[in-house]
């Protein structure tokens, strides 16, 4: 039962990753590509982590899994913001100086 749940969630997560990858390749400009990529990262990885959460042997592993997911979301979000700004406006010397 748990295995079926894990498989379903991971399958869904992989689906998001596949869709995100297709979007990354097919979408015409940087903002839409980032849109595709961040959706895949956040939702896809979240679903995979949730699926794996049903397989962990103890609470410590569960917390580690949670930490991995949170860190990945955090860095992906920050990276996407930075890439987005560079893409929207040319670099004027400050890495995130185009924030308004």
């Amino acid at each position, binding site marked *: 039962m748990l295995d079926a749940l894990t498989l379903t969630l991971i399958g869904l997560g992989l689906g998001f990753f596949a869709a995100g990858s297709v979007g990354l390749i097919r979408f015409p400009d940087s903002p839409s590509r980032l849109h595709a990529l961040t959706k895949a990262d956040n939702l896809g990885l979240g679903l995979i982590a949730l699926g794996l959460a049903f397989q962990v042997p103890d609470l410590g592993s569960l917390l580690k899994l949670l930490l991995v997911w949170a*860190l990945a979301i*955090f*860095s992906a979000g*920050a990276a996407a*913001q*930075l890439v987005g700004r560079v893409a929207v406006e040319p670099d004027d*010397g*400050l*890495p*995130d*100086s185009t*924030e308004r």
Partner: protein
Amino acid sequence: MATPFDLALSLLVLVIAAFAVLGRHGFMAVVFFITFGLLLALAWLRLDAVDVALAEAAIGAGLTGVLLLVARSRLKALEPPLAPAPHPVLRAGAGVGAAAVTTGLVLAIPALPLSTGLQAEVMEQLPLTGTDNPVTAVLLNLRGWDTLLETLVLLAALLGVWTLAREIDWPGRAGRAHRTRPDGVLAQFGRVLPPLALVIGVYLVWVGGHRPGGAFQGGTVLAAAWIVTVMAGLLPAPRVDDRTLRTALLAGPVAFVVLAVAGLLADSVLVFPPDRAKLLLLGLEALLAVSIAATLAMLVFGAPEDRSGRDP
């Protein structure tokens, strides 16, 4: 046992490596190199070599990737004239030579004697080494000589980078100044990540005593914490003549050399007495982690540069 996953992974590693080498665009080559490192880490993981996987992901993909990216942007700023293509005969010769070496290596693989390596010998000596992690036992005790030289190589690399500084910039703060908006995403990133990275880095060093981890993996994470803080503009890079920095750079290698000499006086070079090995190894690993973190971070920061200019 090769599963379809392992076969696909091996194939992917080869394809990505080819892209990294054959790509004409420098930036793409670096991106493929980083991807190559991450996939290679996955491959090491499949081989149950968690220590190597950690090191490959942290140093091979992460830190080397950053170094290559910085180097590429610096090279681009120099706008070098296009080098003339080498003579066709030279290129053909290089190709034939590389193909011959590859063929020789491939042919040699089936001729390798079936061996389990030195695993049994290491496991036999493990109780005497002062650690429960066989990889740490090999790196710091049984083959400590190699690791000592590795730390010296890191120091030599940093000296090489420092020799690139101009006379008028020496001794200043390492690298260029990083300015970011105080309320920007990067500054926020730099405030949240380093505390977490500090905990993870220290944990990796500590856990190296009995599970995968150690000075190189933990030190790289600690270096990353420092690099992020500096890149986010929250802390200035240290001056290259800062005494604390110099001490941090030298602590590990000096402790290693002292232990080697002490061992020489008592018995033989780099021999740890089994009853005190655990304490010695733990101390050595901690100091090495500090030195590795400081050296790797200083490598990324670079030589002191003119900080008055517009360039960030």
